[in-house]
């Protein structure tokens, strides 16, 4: 593999930005955001440069690496701080830095009134650096550093306005649920080291063949747990909705476009493990399918525009995970959907931010309505993203999502039918709830507060939205034209034999579009025709109630983990005080007690001492007698 000395700058530039902004403090308030944006952009152009270099090489020569220094080396456990840039990482590098830079630009305007804007940009830069480390690390442990780094950045950014207790709690929840997932990653590293003696991607890829399926399945399941945590997949999905507490650009960048897709990256990157561990792969598919429907169902009931989008994100990542779980045939489609999703979902989030910006930070869609006239640019960019996520041809989502549905059907047998149906159903529900969002926000009658003065956002905000909208329109075609992305990525994955086709592609597309149309139609009937209340109706079906409560995910966590945990904690605190420390004090007290009772013998009367001496002599003689016998 070729080596390069330039890779580290991809990470170092934004990292330096974060360090400078944090250390310089208020002094950098004036220029901090510009520096951060510039460094992020620099990183993006560096990425483009690396891409151009990569395009100039033959496909076998494309992956390049860089060894920075020996990080940890104990016995056979040798980890270099090394970077790896291959066809897969470059996609992510460009997505992260590209969308990242766009969102930096957006944030300049969005956060312009915030006193702590500099700190916000420092965190954003830190996030970019950590995310780049995640996708560039050449071993699981290096990836792990980035993995937790983005978790930290996410924590800091969700809790950016942590003076509000609810936001602080949301950030804590996100960090802790992520940590549960991270634990899976550390287990995976441990199992890998114990069974293969290495944790680098190349090393494990080479050793995977000699390793038992059981071990690989174990690693795969652990990686899946890690992915569910980071990508808000079932069963560790509960944090994503609350994570919307962060500023909207954060939701767009971290909780829609990049960080939450890290799980997809992890599974795709570990293709050599999952390909050899069918059980783990099956679990990946199941998790993807469940989350896909789970997120979509939540999305139908959410009135908070950001939470509706978050539920949608969850659902879309479910698609990606499902695709990644389908094996070599699905990896490319997972990545493709990831990239297109990065565009359209980030665009929609920025659109939501723009709406909130114009509506005094109101997030309840029931207080929106008829904003089309007041925010035309936002409406158009959002609408393009909407069409893309629906999968309407020729928008981006059509290419990527149809591929996934098709591949799901082709998975073979009953599995294929189930997965195909699930993905189709998901597409229908997606159409329903996204149409609902559109209708509630942009059409119908206005249901604003009196104080609201909706207005279009400044150009610094709509320009990024526009760029992303262009991406939402074109990226699908560009990536799938002639299977461009699939060919680009194919050297990384094992070649696969074509499955038999259950349904011809055209039928799948037609089915999908039909379901989408049905979903749109239902939403129209329900919301556009009959109008919408400004207050959420309470006489709704149980299903809606449950969906509003995120399908009881928080209730479940509370009842199963939190409450018992709290009881256990307070019980243990009591135990420690009463039993363990009590035993210690008990020893002290019993010593005191023995002393106090023996003190009664020391009554000062010489005659009782004499009696004791006599008893002592008696005991002594008796003892000697007994022993002497």
């Amino acid at each position, binding site marked *: 593999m070729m080596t390069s000395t330039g890779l580290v700058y991809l990470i170092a530039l934004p990292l330096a930005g974060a360090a400078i902004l944090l250390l310089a403090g208020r002094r950098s308030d004036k220029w901090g955001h510009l520096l951060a944006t510039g460094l992020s952009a620099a990183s993006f152009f560096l990425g483009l440069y690396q891409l151009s270099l990569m395009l100039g090489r033959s496909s076998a020569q494309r992956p390049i690496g860089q060894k920075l220094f020996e990080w940890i080396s104990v016995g056979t456990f040798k980890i270099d701080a090394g970077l790896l840039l291959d066809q897969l990482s470059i996609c992510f590098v460009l997505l992260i830095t590209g969308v990242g830079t766009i969102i930096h630009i957006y944030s300049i305007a969005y956060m312009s009134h915030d006193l702590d804007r500099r700190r916000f940009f420092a965190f954003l830069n830190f996030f970019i650096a950590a995310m780049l480390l995640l996708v560039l690390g050449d071993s699981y442990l290096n990836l792990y550093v980035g993995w937790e780094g983005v978790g930290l950045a996410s924590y800091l950014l969700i809790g950016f306005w942590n003076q509000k207790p609810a936001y602080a709690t949301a950030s804590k929840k996100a960090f802790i649920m992520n940590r549960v997932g991270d634990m899976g990653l550390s287990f995976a590293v441990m199992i890998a080291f114990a069974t293969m003696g290495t944790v680098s991607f190349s090393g494990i890829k080479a050793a995977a063949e000699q390793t038992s399926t059981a071990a690989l399945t174990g690693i795969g399941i652990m990686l899946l747990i890690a992915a569910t945590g980071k990508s808000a997949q079932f069963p560790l999905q509960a944090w994503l909705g609350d994570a919307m507490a962060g500023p909207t650009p954060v939701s767009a960048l971290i909780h829609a476009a990049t960080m939450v897709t890290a799980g997809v990256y992890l599974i795709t990157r570990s293709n050599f493990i999952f390909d050899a561990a069918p059980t783990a792969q099956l679990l990946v598919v199941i998790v993807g399918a469940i989350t896909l429907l789970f997120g979509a169902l939540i999305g139908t009931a959410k009135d908070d525009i950001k939470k509706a989008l978050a539920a949608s994100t969850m659902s879309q990542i479910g698609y990606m995970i499902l695709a990644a779980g389908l094996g070599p045939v699905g990896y490319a489609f997972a990545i493709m959907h990831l990239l297109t999703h990065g565009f359209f979902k980030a665009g929609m989030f920025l659109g939501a931010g723009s709406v909130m910006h114009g509506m005094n930070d109101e997030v309840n869609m029931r207080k929106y309505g008829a904003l089309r006239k007041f925010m035309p640019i936002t409406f158009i960019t959002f609408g393009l993203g909407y069409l893309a996520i629906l999968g309407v041809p020729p928008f981006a989502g059509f290419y990527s999502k149809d591929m996934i549905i098709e591949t799901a059907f082709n998975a073979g047998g009953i599995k294929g039918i189930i997965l195909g149906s699930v993905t189709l159903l998901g597409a229908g529900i997606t159409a329903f709830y996204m149409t609902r969002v559109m209708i509630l926000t942009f059409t119908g009658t206005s249901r604003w507060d009196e104080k609201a003065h909706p207005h279009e956002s400044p150009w610094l905000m709509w320009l990024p939205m526009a760029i992303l909208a262009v991406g939402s329109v074109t990226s699908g075609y560009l990536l799938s034209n002639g299977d461009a992305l699939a060919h680009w990525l194919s050297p990384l994955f094992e070649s696969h034999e074509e499955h038999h086709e259950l349904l011809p592609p055209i039928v799948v597309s037609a089915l999908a579009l039909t379901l989408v149309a049905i979903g749109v139609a239902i939403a129209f009937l329900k919301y556009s025709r009959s109008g919408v209340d400004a207050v959420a109706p309470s006489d709704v079906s149980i299903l809606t109630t449950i969906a509003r409560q995120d399908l009881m995910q928080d209730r479940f966590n509370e009842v199963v983990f939190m409450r018992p945990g709290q009881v256990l904690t307070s019980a243990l605190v009591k135990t420690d005080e009463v039993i363990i420390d009590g035993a210690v004090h008990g020893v002290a007290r019993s010593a005191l007690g023995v002393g106090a009772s023996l003190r009664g013998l*020391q*009554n*000062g*009367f*010489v*005659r*009782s001492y*004499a*009696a004791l001496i*006599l008893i002592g002599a008696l005991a002594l003689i008796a003892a000697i007698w007994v022993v002497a016998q």
Partner: protein
Amino acid sequence: MDVANYLYLSALLFTIGAVGVIVRRNAIVVFMCIELMLNAANLSFVTFSRINGDLNGQVIAFFTMVVAACEVVVGLAIIVMIYRSRRSASVDDASLLSR
């Protein structure tokens, strides 16, 4: 006659002396009981001397007597002291340790 009878006598006298030390309150009587115990021991020494056929036991008994004499001298002086300050010869009155 069995020489051991002297030993039985000695043991009984010793026991009586011990009981006396415990139950009597007059310091002088207590002292006499202590003397009784010493004498009982002396009787044993003398008897053992006879049993073993050498005079070491008698010499020890002799020393015991001397030591007992010393003890009586000092002890009675102490009793006089106590009596002088407390106007009482009861050992129970000298129980300052309990307070």
